[in-house]
């Protein structure tokens, strides 16, 4: 899965316009507008030409890296990784090789995105591959192009174009619905991630540049240190400590609602060795 997309660079307004927060507030979703406030105001970005992976890095890709280098991931060194149960929780033996803990494995998952990789793990892979992690502006531009789009394919939600909770569990508009779905999934699959083969939703779910899985499947690390677009942004106050410390995560995952897999949606991840069963990455390089 070494295919890269050449993006000619350009200028664009990163982030969401004011109407997006109003639309979110009026939509049938459970989160307050401040929850999304860190994706505003829009800021102008200029990008040099670059290449970005068409797909997230797969289990097979990562296995080749580990085989060639003997690399040991942070979760393997620490002896645990993270799962989501009623909240995020550490679980012994959760690693990229055993994504649901001891007894789980990778059979049949070669073409799925690798998970349980920390920011350092992802960076080490990228270096080995002669690449780097994409910056946040590069990631967003690859997902939506120069014009604004809510999702990579356009502005109309379609649950069959991305691997999200709504693909697996149908329309969900409340946290209670999500929790009920999550409990049902746990009963059937335990903690095994609901990833899908990379590119499984192509071409219908692809971005204008032809990048796949930019909405859902796995959350993706970027190279960018978390920062507000402007101090004037109204945002959830609890993410303040992430600024200057965490790294931006993009794209949402198989655990997400439609609103969390938008092209402008931002999350922030602790880069100090932390990983989980829905977090992966893709790579970029200068053109």
């Amino acid at each position, binding site marked *: 899965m070494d295919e890269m997309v050449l993006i000619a660079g350009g200028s664009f307004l990163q982030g969401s316009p004011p109407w997006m927060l109003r639309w979110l507030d009026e939509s049938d979703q459970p*989160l*307050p507008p*401040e*929850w999304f406030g*860190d994706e505003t105001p829009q800021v102008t970005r200029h990008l040099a030409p670059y290449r970005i992976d068409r797909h997230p890095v797969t289990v097979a890709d990562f296995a080749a890296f580990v085989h060639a280098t003997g690399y040991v991931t942070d979760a393997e060194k620490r002896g645990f990784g*993270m799962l989501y149960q*009623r*909240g*995020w*929780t*550490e679980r012994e033996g959760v690693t990229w090789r055993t994504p649901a803990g001891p007894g789980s494995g990778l059979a049949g998952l070669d073409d799925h995105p690798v998970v349980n990789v920390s920011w350092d793990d992802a960076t080490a892979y990228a270096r080995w591959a002669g690449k780097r992690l994409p910056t946040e502006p590069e990631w967003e531009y690859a997902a939506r192009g120069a014009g604004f789009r809510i999702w990579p394919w356009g502005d109309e939600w379609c649950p069959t174009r991305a691997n999200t909770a709504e693909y697996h569990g149908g329309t969900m508009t409340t*946290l209670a619905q999500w929790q009920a779905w999550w409990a049902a999934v746990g009963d059937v699959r335990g903690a095994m991630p609901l990833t899908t083969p990379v590119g499984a939703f192509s071409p219908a779910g692809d971005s204008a540049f032809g990048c796949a899985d930019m909405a859902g499947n796995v*959350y993706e690390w970027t190279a960018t240190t978390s920062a507000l677009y402007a101090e004037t942004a109204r945002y*959830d*106050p*609890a*993410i*303040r*400590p*992430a600024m200057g*410390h*965490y790294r931006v*995560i993009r794209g*949402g995952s198989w655990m*997400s609602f439609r609103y*969390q897999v938008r092209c402008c*949606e*931002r*999350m*922030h*991840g*602790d880069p100090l060795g*932390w990983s*989980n069963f829905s*977090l992966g990455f893709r790579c970029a390089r200068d053109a």
Partner: protein
Amino acid sequence: MVTIVVPSVWTADRRSYFTVQEGPLFEVLRRFVAQRPECRGRVFGADGEPLMFVNVSVDDRMVPRRERAGTVVPAGSTVILISPIAGG
């Protein structure tokens, strides 16, 4: 008193700010979850010990894991609790 800030999605009423008595950090956290029991599982493990992967900022300084047990939070401080994956 100490101000505690948590993600609004942790609480049923979408509240982020709480006030508790100052003191050792872990005591401050225990006072907070006594006030908001629905947050207990997000702050403490089943063994009753603080979840160390939940990061803690005191007055805009991230407190390293190894320093948390010995940290005392003075009156007037702001403690922010942040998950390893935040926002979204």
